[in-house]
């Protein structure tokens, strides 16, 4: 392998989009309106598009004949390194939008930095993804406002979702060893530097939506080390079903 750290670094980015794309894909045909169905499918599509570019690059770095699909669908549960936030289930539409919002705010900041990477492939993927991520962020922020400042019921549901997911936000700013090595080489993004502006931006939107910013200082972590919540296994059994049941075939 050309660079183990680079490979791991790419997976750290790609797995987030893969797992979130999979979650958004579950909703297709079941959303609260045709328009939101289309938008959620669209987000899922964008994320999977990004995912393909990342895994194709990872496959090239790995140089061991594995394809994008092998990397995406044939790892063990402990080898997925997405943050816990993105694997949380679609409990209801408030959870779905809160999860999206809390990720989008991070994702956009992250991509804007990744664009400056001295790795030209990553920088190019970032450039392409920024447009999509800013659209996602606008969409999810709008729903935070609508549900937060909509009816009493929606306000309560959105507050509950934000409270429930808040515990997964801190992990976004944790650095792995691969992250540190990549930052040092000018390839990776120093996520610790994004934290302050993230909470500031998120706080502003929540306040504008008449929602309270959770005060809890207890955070969950582990996704980046492959220690996931119980939800991920079920998601993977769908994601991997065909590749596991019919190995070594082309589709």
């Amino acid at each position, binding site marked *: 392998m050309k660079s183990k750290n680079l490979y791991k670094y790419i997976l750290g980015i790609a797995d987030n989009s893969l797992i979130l794309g999979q979650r958004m894909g579950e909703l*297709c045909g079941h959303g609260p309106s045709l328009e939101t169905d289309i938008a959620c499918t669209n987000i899922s599509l964008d994320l999977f598009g990004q995912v393909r570019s990342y895994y194709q690059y990872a496959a090239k770095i790995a140089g061991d004949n594995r394809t994008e699909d092998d990397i995406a669908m044939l790892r063990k549960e402990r080898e997925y390194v997405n943050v816990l936030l993105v694997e949380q289930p679609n409990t209801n539409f408030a959870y779905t939008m809160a999860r999206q919002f809390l990720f989008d705010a991070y994702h956009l900041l992250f991509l804007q930095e990744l664009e400056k990477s001295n790795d030209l492939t990553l920088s190019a993927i970032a450039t392409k993804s920024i447009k999509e991520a800013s659209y996602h962020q606008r969409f999810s922020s709008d729903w935070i406002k609508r549900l937060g400042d909509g009816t009493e019921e929606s306000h309560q549901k959105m507050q509950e979702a934000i409270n429930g997911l808040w515990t997964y936000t801190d992990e976004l700013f944790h650095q792995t060893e691969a992250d540190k090595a990549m930052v040092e080489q000018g390839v990776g993004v120093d996520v610790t530097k994004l934290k302050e502006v993230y909470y500031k931006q998120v706080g502003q939107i929540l306040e504008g939506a008449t929602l309270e910013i959770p005060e809890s200082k207890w955070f969950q972590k582990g996704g980046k080390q492959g220690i996931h919540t119980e939800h991920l296994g079920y998601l993977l059994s769908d*994601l991997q079903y065909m590749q596991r049941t*019919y190995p070594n075939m082309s589709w």
Partner: protein
Amino acid sequence: MSEEQIKNLEAQFEARIARDEKIEPKDWMPEKYRKTHIRQMSQHAHSEVVGMLPEGNWITRAPSLRRKVALLAKIQDEAGHGLYLYSACETLGVSRDELYDQLHSGKAKYSSIFNYPTITWADMGAIGWLVDGAAIINQVPLCNTSYGPYARAMIRVCKEESFHQRQGYEIMIKLAQGTPEQKEMAQDALNRWWWPSLMMLGPTDDVSVHTAQSMKWKLKRKSNDDLRQQFIDQTVPQAELIGLTIPDSDLKWNEEKGSYDFGEIDWDEFWQVVKGHGPCNKERMNARVSAWEEGEWVRDAAMAYAEKQKERKEKQAV
């Protein structure tokens, strides 16, 4: 308006259609024309939306990222078709909520084909190839139908449907050229989807109602039996080309008529599914109804928020 005046208007109206002029929403039209169009277009819109469900089953399980992306894009197109067809319906003075009510109460129909289950990945190929394929045959003539908004919606829809059809066929090619297991999966899907796809072209001409009127209004150009023959003649060589067998032992090329003879369609099955007792009628309806009911608080919130925003703007303006 006197009876005579109405008769006059009707005659002018029919003459316009005969001259191939488009009828537009603000034009005068006979009540029956409006009703028939609302029924047909909404049924079409509902089919697009219910049709998202059987394919939606396989988004999370698609075998490769490339296929996942293509499937998502296809289903997104279907949602888009639903959207423009509902909008076309709305031009006739019926609201989308009313149309949903008709669907959810079982008053409105949607294409029966979506009441069959999608149990293997090959069903994604078979649906694109056969179901979108049959839909195109039904729908291409509608690009020239008399009602303007419907005709324009159909031009857009048909372009995308033919893309779906190719995409589905391409899934089948890949399976048919694959391992024995893959080939078997493809053949099994063809076996299950073939007959229901033939039924999509509608009951045989001798029992089909409203055909004469529909022909006049260009809601129909060819009879169901002609459309079915066209579908069979077009599809059989495609199956042969990839080494799959059409599950009909009576299927034979008829040199004299220059088309295929085919076996008896099980019309009892057709009517069973149309009447609501197909393998997935209940599941499809439950999925739509619960999406709608569980989404109510979301739609209410969006409305309340828009209302508040409007008030805020008005206050600012003062």
